[in-house]
């Protein structure tokens, strides 16, 4: 009898779970496998085109230094943006978690998180308006700065970094905030009453305890930034050639899908390596 109940339970579990997971399989896992296949053939296998298995798409990456250089450029962009997000976001999370109390904290927290849930493309576009020469930032600075300034940040690397930090800063603030909130205030109080200086408290108590949350936030920023293409396009102009934009070109402009698939797959490998490296810490952050 007990086995019978377990069996109907199992059937119910399968009935409830399979639609969602079949959907994920068709829309995410099978496509990723298809891309692996595409990355090792010569031409798209639709219609009458001739195609065969090849390693050319990967050797193309190794032979031409352009791709590796762009991947490095994208990784460095990721490092820069991540570092800035952590440096700017951590103190902000500290203020929210430890210095502001009650309803004000809830409202302010919501205000920090809200832009993150609005359209990222539109937010990047709004920076293009602010940063352009003779634009709002230029005019404002000229008005308050005693010496003449000529500031045209649009289509520079700084513009791309500013836009990306703006896009992903809330991620770091959110994860750091959750980690900091879990730290017992009495621990800090105890250290202070024993005569510890603030940097000792920061270095020996706060940072070690909030490290999992901070690293989780950093990974959540780094991974999408390495794969970004829309932000460099809009804010970088002609300078905005990155690894992501090259992949975009293979699919929408050059139509070399196998090469695009190989480049995407190399990026995926980089991303997975980073996620795997961070996974022990990420697991700790969730519990």
């Amino acid at each position, binding site marked *: 009898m007990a086995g019978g109940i377990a069996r109907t*339970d199992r059937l*119910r*579990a399968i009935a*409830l*779970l399979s639609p*969602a997971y079949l*959907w*994920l399989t*068709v*829309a*995410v*896992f099978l*496509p*990723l496998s*298809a*891309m692996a296949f595409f990355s090792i053939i010569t031409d*798209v*296998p*639709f219609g009458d085109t001739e195609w065969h298995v090849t390693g050319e798409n990967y050797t193309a990456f190794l032979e031409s230094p352009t791709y590796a250089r762009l991947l490095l450029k994208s990784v460095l962009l990721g490092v820069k943006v991540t570092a800035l997000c952590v440096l700017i976001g951590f*103190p*902000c999370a500290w*203020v929210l978690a430890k*210095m502001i109390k009650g309803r004000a*904290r*809830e409202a302010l*927290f*919501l*205000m*920090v998180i809200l*832009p993150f*849930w*609005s*359209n*990222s*493309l*539109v*937010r990047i*576009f*709004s920076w*293009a*308006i*602010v940063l352009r020469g003779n*634009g*709002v930032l230029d*005019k404002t600075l000229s008005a308050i700065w005693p010496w003449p300034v000529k500031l045209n940040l649009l289509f520079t690397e700084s513009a791309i970094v500013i836009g990306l930090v*703006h896009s992903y*800063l809330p991620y770091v603030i*959110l994860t750091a905030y959750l980690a900091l909130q879990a730290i017992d205030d009495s621990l800090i109080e105890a250290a202070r009453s024993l005569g510890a200086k603030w940097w000792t408290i920061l270095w020996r108590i706060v940072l070690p305890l909030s490290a999992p949350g901070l690293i989780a936030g950093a990974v959540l920023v780094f991974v999408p930034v390495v*794969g970004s293409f*829309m932000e460099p*396009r*809009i804010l970088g102009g002609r300078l905005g050639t990155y690894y*992501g934009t090259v*992949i*975009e070109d293979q*699919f*929408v402009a050059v139509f070399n899908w196998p090469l695009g698939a190989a480049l*995407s797959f190399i*990026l995926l490998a980089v*991303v997975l390596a980073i996620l795997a490296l961070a996974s022990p810490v990420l697991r700790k952050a969730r519990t």
Partner: protein
Amino acid sequence: MKPRTRSRVTGILGRVYLGAILLFLYAPILVMAAMSFNASEFYQLPFTFSTEWYERVWRNDLILNAAARSVWIAVVVTVVATVLGTAASVALWRYDFRGKRALQVLLFPPIAIPWLITGTAMLIFFFGVGIGRGTPAVIIGHVALALPYVIVVVTARLATFDRTLEEAARSLGARPWMVTRAVMLPWIAPGVIAGALFAFAVSFDQFVISYFLSEPGDSTLPVLIYTAIRKGFTPEINAISTIIIAVSMVVMLIAARFTKFGGER
């Protein structure tokens, strides 16, 4: 300095810092919104108030069609993702079985892998199996992105559900479906509503996946905006962008009423 004055000073500094962050986060959006009411096409100052660009949006069929398509795609995605996601959450919460951890881990790839990779992979696969580009492909992709969010939010709400309530109902003779409908669903409703709003936001704001999957001339609003920006700025884009930001912020504010965002413990 005395400790009390020092803590007051750091308190003020902290608030100033937080204010600076909020300025950084909101200033560009506010500038864009202001410029959408500026008469000058090239964002010239001084500012002269005009609603011309909004009127132009209203007369622009291309933008209106894309907006309508974005909204109805988001509605379909919301319904499908919420139903499938809630069902999966209930199963993950109620039953213990081997491989449950693995199923939970499988929710992360759609969130963690850059959309550029997922989007191009979907394009390749959908072409290979004959779905091709277009609205059905966009919907399939959006639902897959929204599902993990729904499952995470609903599962979090389920964690607060008291299992003894379910047992009590069952021991009083309620059939399993009755237990789910009359006892559990009312309890998790706020989580389901929040999950649905997240799903709507994910779909309505999604650009990368839509960009690779939508057909030229049959695109969603964000794709249309991207194409317009790359061709050259037009002030109508300011107006429609302002509307989009307003819509998604309102949706998220409503969602925030139903979930705590992890903000309160």
